[in-house]
């Protein structure tokens, strides 16, 4: 396996998405195509430019830290399983 193929296997493990063997093979082929497709972007001379993280200049604005009413009943109704005052989720401890 080349480094991209190893990287792809690690990515699948890290993100925990189940893929079938045929899909896995296809992803390997497609990743090679994708990385080739990206080559022109890598050749752009960006020098010491800082990367952008937001489209225009803006400062973060905090809202007033005041208590608010939440409609808990509405949230509880939206939960798949709310029983005895608890939101029940699948077992995550083994």
């Amino acid at each position, binding site marked *: 396996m080349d*480094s*991209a193929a190893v*990287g*792809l296997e*690690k*990515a*699948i493990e*890290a*993100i*925990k*998405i*189940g*893929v079938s063997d045929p*899909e896995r093979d296809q*992803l390997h082929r*497609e*990743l090679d*195509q*994708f990385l080739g*497709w*990206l080559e*022109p*972007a*890598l050749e*752009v001379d*960006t020098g010491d*430019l*800082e*990367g*952008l*993280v*937001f*489209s*225009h200049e*803006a*400062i*973060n*604005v905090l*809202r007033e830290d005041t208590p608010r009413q939440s409609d808990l009943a*509405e*949230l509880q*109704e*939206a939960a798949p399983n709310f029983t005895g005052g608890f939101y029940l*989720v*699948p*077992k*995550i401890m*083994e």
Partner: protein
Amino acid sequence: MELRKTTVHRVAEAVLEGEITAHQLIDKTLKNCSVLNEGLNIFNAVAGVDATEQARAIDEKIKQGGELPLAGIPITVKDDLCYGVLPTSFGSSAFSEFISPVTAAVVESLMEAGAVVIGKTNLDDMGQGSTTLTSPGGATANPWQAERTAGSAGAAAVATGICMLAVESDSGGALRQGASHCGVAGLRPTTGRVSRHGLNAHCSSFARVGITAFSCENISGVLDIISGFDERDAATAVCRKGIPEIIKTPGSEDITIGYPVTAFDFLQPELREVFEQARDDFAGLGYKIKNIDLGLLREGLQAYYIIALAEASSNHARFDGIRFGKTGEADNLENMYFQSRAEILGKEARRRSIFGTFLLSKGNYGRYYRQALKIWELIRQEFAGVLKECDLLMLPTAKNLPRQLKGEVSFLDEWSDDFFCAPVSLSGMPALTIPAGQVNRIPVGMQLVGPPFSEKTLLAVGSTSGPRDTGTL
């Protein structure tokens, strides 16, 4: 009352003055909906009883003297935007029955103004795509040529006259390309102008909520209603002290339109002819045309996909069967995650999330992701520089005619369809798609792109150019 041949203002006026009740209008709309939707696959859910109840409530408010500038106006909502009454699937069959506890801010604003939601419209797998070809429920056909994709279902709903306004998301160009393919107008607003609260964004940096309508006039009629600061979306903080509008009077030689000559080399010859004609038409209307250069469109598209995939891998992490989505059947926790995520995410969303994780991994982050952030800055500078030389610029919207519903298309070809839209998304500038003409009876649109908060100028200029003769459906 044929919705395609009138305006939002005129219809709302008719409802407010009692020429027709909101209930009658929506009843007729729902009947038309089942006929016009035939074979197109526009809707994931139709409001039915809910829409009727909304309309009755509007009629009651009018009796009590309510001021409703959008009284009775039928709207559709793309299915990655929450509406607390109908299911919101996000483009995943795992959420086909999910009723959100919230309603998207834009939908709330339009409903408060009297609009009536008649349905949720189809979209690509987890909202990722500009064709609907990856939708778990199948693609939406183009009303102009049913063997081709509509690009976006909301645009198809507007083009057929099912609704007057479609609320849609746009990251790499879904809203704009849909409008282009269906011969209608679509506005992607400036970053921060319109709240994204209630939108399931796969790509937070570039996802915006916009409006598709039959005419620029109809979009103008709702722009102020949906614009402004919303504390639930930090990006709207730029509008906290009011919207910094840039408005220029159109139709005069005071407005210069940039024409990126080399960009048109990437178009099919017949599409190129449409834009050359549109440029000449603008010149004929008195606008100054200035040749400009945008040299980084291809690299902008590539940078968009690096960032969009990286963000998708992060944003989709919550769909794990524990926090969101159905829990997959498995014998242990690890396998449960793999199974749940495989079921929640479709093939396109899986590809994007896995590639995004790859791009963010050690050794690739600097080479790809950091480089993409720098190209994003170069694109912003390039567009800002061009828009110092001219008031707005015209660009194609779609690189090709809409894709055929049947037939193989590679994922890279499909991503490349965003060639003219994704770089504009990176720029943060507003973009308006308007009809430019036709090729073989298929509509072709063009984008007008202006500086931040110049939407009213774009809409005014767009109004003077059309709607162009795109024939009759």
